[in-house]
């Protein structure tokens, strides 16, 4: 009967010595390809318009973002503007840009770009008000944020 005795063979444990290496590789991949989340949105995340003629913003530290979208509460009409972490009005844009100018070195000031991340359903009037405020303080380089699509 001993022939039928099932001898339990010990399965060799899977070698996990390289697991840290694999995970580190993943970690480095994500560290390189992603950027830090800068702001928490206090408005509904804007659905960006689609465009074909887009440019990539290269130097992130030279870009100030203005978010435009609907309020988080339902039923509140009108567009909300968010600067940094606060819901703001167009009047605050001046100080927002001036703060940004202080934070970069002197010779980079004229390379600052303002990126307007606005929802497709916002009004052109709101965007125009923002642009006028930007013109007032000579922040002329703007970028209408849009997602890139290919031409059909």
């Amino acid at each position, binding site marked *: 009967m001993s022939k039928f005795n099932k001898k339990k063979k010990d399965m060799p444990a899977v070698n996990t010595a390289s697991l840290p290496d694999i995970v580190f590789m993943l970690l480095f991949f994500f560290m390189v390809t992603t950027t*830090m989340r800068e702001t928490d949105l206090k408005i509904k995340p804007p659905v960006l318009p689609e465009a074909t003629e887009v440019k990539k913003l290269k130097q992130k530290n030279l870009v100030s973002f203005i978010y435009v979208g609907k309020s988080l509460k339902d039923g509140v009409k009108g567009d909300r503007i968010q600067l940094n972490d606060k819901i703001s009005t167009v009047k605050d844009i001046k100080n927002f840009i001036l703060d940004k100018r202080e934070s970069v070195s002197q010779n980079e000031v004229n390379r600052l770009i303002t990126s307007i991340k606005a929802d497709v359903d*916002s009004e052109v009037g709101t965007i125009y008000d923002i642009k006028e405020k930007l013109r007032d303080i000579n922040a002329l380089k703007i970028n209408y944020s849009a997602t890139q699509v290919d031409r059909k």
Partner: protein
Amino acid sequence: MAKRDIPEINAGSMADIAFLLLIFFLVTTTMNSDTGISRKLPERQPENIDPPVLKEKNVFIVMLNRTGEILVEGDTYMTVDQIKDEAIKFLDNGGGNGKDGNPCDYCKGKKDPTSSDHPNKAIISLGSARGTDYGKYIAVQNELVAAYNELRDKASEAKYGVSFKKLKEASEESDISKSKKESLKEKIKTIKEMYPMILSEQEPVK
């Protein structure tokens, strides 16, 4: 001297630590790169300055109302995908003399005397209502920018054998010599002067 065996450090928890870091980065970072249509706003002019007088035939007016209808030159309704070709027709017309008094020798348009004189005189004006959807506004603007880009691409293709887009990409690369960069910049400037982007955004009406 008796050698003492140094016990090996247990690396079993290394993976856990790495996972922890990995998850931290996954949560706090975003992947999306920022893209968009770059524009330059016009500088504020002194109040008492007189606006320059323009010939009506040199201005291409696109109006966008709050329901998203597009009116071109005050008389034709168009859809978004028609605008680009119409704008190219207008810009590349070359029906008269340019700013320096010479006719446009690279324009491929019809030379219609009732349309624009020269690409460096041709102005596209985009007007809208305050209540217009921003998405629509950008869609139209995208088409107008596309018209300029297409003309520049063609001009560059004819002059230098590469598209304007490629020229720009090449000039932004970091591992090229300084003299090459200069010559690329010079080419870009020439093309830009052939078709300067004069795209004016009007104050929206109520």
